[in-house]
């Protein structure tokens, strides 16, 4: 009897979590409906963001989000693969890797807002100098500045995934290559990297999902302009940073609905990215231990 109640209550809690996710999705849909109805479905992706005129086009922000995250990803890939090889192959045990690992751990723990604060005081002046050097209007803040801070922030996440996969490469395979006279360089580029390719891609996708949702550091460094971004140097806005900037100042309910609509798009974007990443990982794990 008691056992049955116990099991039921456990299953109920599991059901509750599913319900929670469903409620989140439905709330986002329901609350963004007024904005979608006001402007018609086709205008959701237009380039006009005029909350006071009932125009809630999200195109500049979607582009801002994708550009900053993608640039951050490109910048982070060489570093994260290098560090993963460093930890997974060259230095497996001892003082150096444990020091490096605790550094990465610490880096992952620093709050977004502190990255933003540091960026405002160190990165922005540096970017201003760089922009002056190239003869561009020296804003300092902008898409590229936000991408650089994002790069530093997502590296710890892509490393841990890549390192895990690199350590999963069977020793037999590596030893076979060494016994044929391969150098360590050849083993890494011809055995380890091809073998762990899909794991690295999955890890990269998951850190892309993180970059897309990052709010505070990006909000502080991107320059907050609501028009289509024209160059990497210039200011822009991401989905998350518009919400952070305008939500507490939105006075009429339609403006709030417009921002919730951006939240819905952001949610769907990360949802798809995470789904694909998890799918690749599951397939990979299945391949490695059938």
């Amino acid at each position, binding site marked *: 009897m008691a056992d049955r109640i116990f099991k039921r209550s456990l299953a109920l809690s599991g059901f509750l979590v599913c319900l929670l996710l469903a409620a989140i999705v439905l709330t986002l849909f329901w609350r963004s409906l007024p904005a979608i109805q006001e402007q018609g479905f086709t205008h959701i992706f237009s380039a006009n963001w005029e909350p006071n005129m009932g125009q809630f086009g999200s195109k500049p922000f979607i582009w801002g989000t994708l550009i900053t995250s993608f640039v951050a990803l490109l910048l982070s890939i060489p570093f994260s693969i290098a560090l993963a090889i460093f930890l997974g192959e060259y230095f497996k045990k001892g003082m150096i890797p444990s020091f490096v690992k605790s550094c990465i751990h610490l880096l992952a723990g620093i709050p977004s807002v502190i990255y933003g604060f*540091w960026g405002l005081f160190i990165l922005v002046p540096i970017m201003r100098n760089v922009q002056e050097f190239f003869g561009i209007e020296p804003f300092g803040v902008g898409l590229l500045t936000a991408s650089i801070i994002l790069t530093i922030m997502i590296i710890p996440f892509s490393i841990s995934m890549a390192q895990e996969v690199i350590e999963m490469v069977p020793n037999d395979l590596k030893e076979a290559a060494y016994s044929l006279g391969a150098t360590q*360089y050849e083993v890494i580029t011809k055995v380890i990297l091809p073998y762990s390719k899909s794991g690295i891609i999955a890890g990269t996708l998951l850190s892309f999902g993180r970059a897309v949702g990052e709010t505070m550091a990006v909000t502080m460094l991107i320059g907050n302009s609501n028009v289509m971004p024209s160059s990497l140097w210039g200011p822009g806005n991401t989905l998350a940073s518009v919400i952070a900037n305008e939500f507490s100042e939105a006075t009429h309910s339609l403006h709030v609905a417009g921002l919730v609509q951006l939240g819905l798009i952001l949610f769907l974007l990360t949802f798809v990215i995470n789904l694909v990443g998890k799918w690749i990982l599951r397939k990979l794990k299945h391949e490695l231990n059938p």
Partner: protein
Amino acid sequence: MIQKTSLETLLIKNYLFKGLIVFLSLLMLLPLLFILFFVLKNGISQLSWAFLSELPKPVGDTGGGVLNAWVGSLLLLATTSVLSVPLGIWVGIYLSEARNSKLAFCTRFCVDLLQGIPSIVMGIIAYIWVVVPSGHFSAFSGSVALSLLMIPLIVTATEETLKLIPNTLKEASLALGVPYWKTVLKVLVPTGFNGILTGILLSLSRIAGETAPLLFTAFGSPFLETSIFKPVQSLPLLIFNYATSPYEDWQRIGWGASCLLILSILGFNILAKVVKRS
């Protein structure tokens, strides 16, 4: 035709590659050390008893502290724990016990997806669920947003911990005639207690620095508030407000608060390691 490569070029390539990897790795660590150094350098000189025990002062007056912010942060973290820890542990037990049922599969999937939702979206949800019906910003709504972020973390930590406990322990208990529910609650959970506590501490350290979901839920307040139904200040919110302000005094307090926040996150992490070892 067989391509001939001399041994020397092979070895040179080998060392060059190793050099490149080490160089990129160290280059990557530089910004981290630089950020930490910068925050500590600017922040540690601010930390003092007055900094912790005084309320912020208006612009122009020197001094002032962050009493309301750290009290607010503690209040938010405590409320969040109360809301999310019981449910999180319960779901974690469910997932580790019912490994193959359809509902468990579905739940695990939902937990995974919840974990991937950006924190600012959780802020919107808490705004719609709590702030709009109650008509005002409150610490409670902030805690709801943080709980939505924390529940998946605790579920995963509990599930991973309980899965590592050998099955023989459970079987021994059942063989002695202990009912199933008592076996789970009095044998399995106490055995995994340290692991679960570690998970909770690590999740708290992740949540403590969250700013985005608090922007329009806890909102911030210049006063010392201890009621969960009033808007409260929190350390990350204060850092955001002071970092973007044009006043040097405020920025200095912002560095002090950043230093305090990083040290407390570090504290949570160290505590988690101590618990894990004991």
